[in-house]
C-alpha cells in the first residue's frame, strides 16, 4: 500500500483563554493520499481552520497541541521552526479564505510573487519570467498588467488566482485551501474550483479543501471528512458519504441543505446548539443533539472505525444503509 502524503493521528488542540482551557480539537484523525482532493466539512467553529493551521504549524502561541501529524514521513509537530520554514511554501502551501486580505496591499503583485519565488527557490535566475509563467498558468491572459498591479486593483477572484500562483511557487505536494471560495460569487467560485482541479492534475498536488459548501465537495473532492465540534465523525469517498450516510450528524447536515426543501415545508435543522469548548460534553460530543443517542454515548468516546473498506465512522449507533 502506498504511504499517504499526510496522516493526522489523534490530534488534540486546546487554547488557553481567560476563561480557561478551550478544547478545540479532540482526536482528529484522517489521511490524505497522493494526488487526492480531501475535504474537511463542518459548520463554522468546528475546528477546520485550526486543523489546517496545526498542519502548517501556524497556530497562535496560546495553543497546546498533542498527537502526530506525519507529512512526507516526518512528524511535523516535532520539527523546529527553522525546519518548518523549509517545509512551508516548498512542500506544503496554503491559501486563505479572504483573498482581499491574503495579499499585502502595499506591494505590487509581481513583487510579492517574485519574493515568494526567491524565498522558495533561490536557484531561479529569472524570477520575473517564472512569475509571468505562473500567472498565465492560473489563467491570466494579461500577465504583464497583473504583474504590475497592486492587489486592490484586482477583483476578488483575480486576487485568489494570484494567491494560488504564490502558493504554487515552490511546487508543493500538499496545498491547503481554507474556504477558498467563501468570499467569492458563484461564477468565480466555479472558476477557482476549476483552477484547483487543474493544479491537482498538472502539479500532482494533493489538496486539503476546507469548506462548508457541500456542492463544492461533490464536484471537486475524492474523499470527505465530516467534522463536528472538534472531532472527525465520518470519513468516506464522496459518493458513499452522500448516498450511504452513516453518522447521524452527517445525515442532519445533508438534510438541512436547501435543495431538499419541498414546497411550504420548513427546512429541517439539527436541534440544539453547539456546546462550549470550555466544557465539552463527556463521551461522544454529538450525543446531546443526537436523535439516536443512548446511555453509552454519554460515557465513552466513539473511536473512528472502518465500517466498510474506505468508509469510517465514529458512532456507536451508525445508520444502516436504507435509513
Amino acid at each position: 500500500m502506498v504511504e499517504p502524503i499526510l496522516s493526522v493521528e489523534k490530534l488534540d488542540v486546546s487554547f488557553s483563554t481567560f476563561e480557561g482551557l478551550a478544547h478545540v480539537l479532540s482526536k482528529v484523525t484522517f489521511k490524505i493520499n497522493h494526488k487526492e482532493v480531501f475535504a474537511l466539512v463542518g459548520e463554522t467553529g468546528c475546528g477546520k481552520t485550526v486543523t489546517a493551521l496545526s498542519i502548517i504549524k501556524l497556530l497562535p502561541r496560546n495553543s497546546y497541541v498533542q498527537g502526530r501529524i506525519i507529512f512526507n514521513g516526518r512528524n511535523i509537530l516535532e520539527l523546529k521552526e527553522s525546519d518548518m520554514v523549509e517545509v512551508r511554501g516548498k512542500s506544503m502551501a496554503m491559501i486563505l479564505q479572504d483573498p482581499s486580505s491574503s495579499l499585502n496591499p502595499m506591494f505590487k503583485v509581481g513583487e510579492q510573487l517574485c519574493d515568494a519565488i526567491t524565498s522558495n527557490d533561490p536557484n531561479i535566475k529569472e524570477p520575473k519570467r517564472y512569475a509571468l509563467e505562473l500567472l498565465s498558468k492560473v489563467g491570466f491572459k494579461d500577465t504583464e498588467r497583473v504583474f504590475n498591479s497592486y492587489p486592490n486593483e484586482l477583483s476578488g477572484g483575480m486576487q485568489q488566482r494570484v494567491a494560488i500562483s504564490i502558493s504554487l511557487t515552490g511546487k508543493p505536494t500538499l496545498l491547503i485551501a481554507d474556504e477558498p471560495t467563501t468570499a467569492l460569487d458563484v461564477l468565480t467560485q466555479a472558476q477557482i474550483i476549476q483552477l484547483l482541479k487543474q493544479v491537482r492534475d498538472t502539479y500532482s498536488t494533493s489538496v486539503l479543501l476546507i469548506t462548508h459548501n457541500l456542492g463544492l465537495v461533490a464536484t471537486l473532492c475524492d474523499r470527505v471528512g465530516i467534522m463536528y465540534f472538534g472531532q472527525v465523525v465520518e470519513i468516506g469517498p464522496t459518493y458513499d458519504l452522500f448516498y450511504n450516510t452513516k453518522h447521524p450528524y452527517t445525515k442532519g447536515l445533508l438534510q438541512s441543505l436547501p435543495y431538499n426543501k419541498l414546497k411550504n415545508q420548513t427546512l429541517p435543522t439539527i436541534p440544539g446548539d453547539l456546546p462550549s469548548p470550555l466544557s465539552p460534553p463527556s463521551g461522544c460530543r454529538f450525543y446531546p443533539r443526537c436523535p439516536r443517542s443512548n446511555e453509552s454515548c454519554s460515557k465513552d468516546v466513539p473511536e473512528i472505525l472502518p465500517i466498510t473498506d474506505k468508509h469510517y465512522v465514529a458512532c456507536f449507533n451508525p445508520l444502516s444503509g436504507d435509513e
Partner: protein
Amino acid sequence: MASFKTYLIKRIILALVVIYFVITITFILSHVVPSDPAELYVGPKATAEQREKAIKELGLNQPIYIQYLRYFQNLVNGDLGKSLRAHTPVLHDILTYLPATLEIVVLANIVALIVGVAFGSYSALKKDMLADHLIRIVSVGGVSIPSFWFALITQLVFFGILGIFPLDSRLSSDIQLFNPIHTITGFYTIDALITGNIVALVDSVRHIILPAFVLATYPIGLVTRMVRSMMVEVLNENYIRFAKANGFKDNLIYYKYALKNALTPALMALGLSFAYSITGAFLVEVIFSWPGLGTYTVNAILENDYPAILGVTIFGTIFYVFINLFLDILQAYLDPRVRLQ
C-alpha cells in the same frame, strides 16, 4: 491618479485658507492686546515728537482695516515688518535663528526615527517578552518625562558629574574666538565640515549632543510606541499569515512586508512632532542657551514685540501646513491604497 490630483489641490486650497485665518486671527489678537507699539518702538526716554514719528512710520495712525490690508500687501512681498525692540526686519531675524533650531530638531528627529523604528519593531517581534516590556517602559518614559526636567538632569549628569559634554550654547567661547566658524548655511556642524574647521566641528558636535538627545526623547517614545502597536497589528493580518504559510523568508516578512505597513503612521506622527518642535523646542533651547527660534519667540512674547510674534506665528503656521502637505504626499507615495483611492 486623477482623483489624487484633485485631492492634492483640495489640500493646498485648504492649507491656504488655514494660513489666511491664522494671519487674520493673530493680527486681530495682537491689536487688541493693551499695549502701545509706538512706545515700545521708541523706548521709554523718547520725546513726544519721536513718538509721533514712530506712529506714522508704523502706520498706526491709519484705520485698522488699512493696517490689515497693508500687512497683507507686505506679507506677499516677503516683508514681515520690523521688530519693535531691535528695529530689524522680522524675516531676517527668523532666518538667523532658524538654523540653530533646525540643527537640533532635525538631528533629534533623525535619531528618533532610527531608534524608534528599531526599538518599536524589535519590541513587536518580541511581544510580551522581557525585551518588549523594557522597551515599553522606556518609551512611556520618553513621552511622559518633562523635557525641561530631563534637560537639567542631563546637564547635571553629563556636565556636572561626568564632565564629558559642555553645559550649554552652540560653541565654546575659546573656539569661537580662535577658530570661528565661517557661516554658510547657519548649521555650525555643516559649516565647520565644509570649511574644514575640524576643531570647531568637534566642539559643535559635542555641544549639540545633549540638547538633541533631550529633544529626541519625546519623538523616540512616540515612534517606538507607534511602530510597536502598528507592527503588532500588522503581524496579525491575514497577509502576514499567508506569506508565512507560503514560505516567504522571515526577514522579508518582518522587515519588508510588516515594517512598511507599520512605518507610515509613525512617519506621520514624527512629521507632526518635527513641525511642532520648530517653535515648541524653546524649553530645551532656553535651558541650553541655544539661540534658536523658540528662544526668539519667547523673548518676543515677553516684550510684546507684536511684529515678531506675528512673524513667527505665520512662519510656524506655513511650516506646519507644508510639513502636513508633504506628509500627505509621502503617505500617498508609500501607500498605494491612498494613492489609488
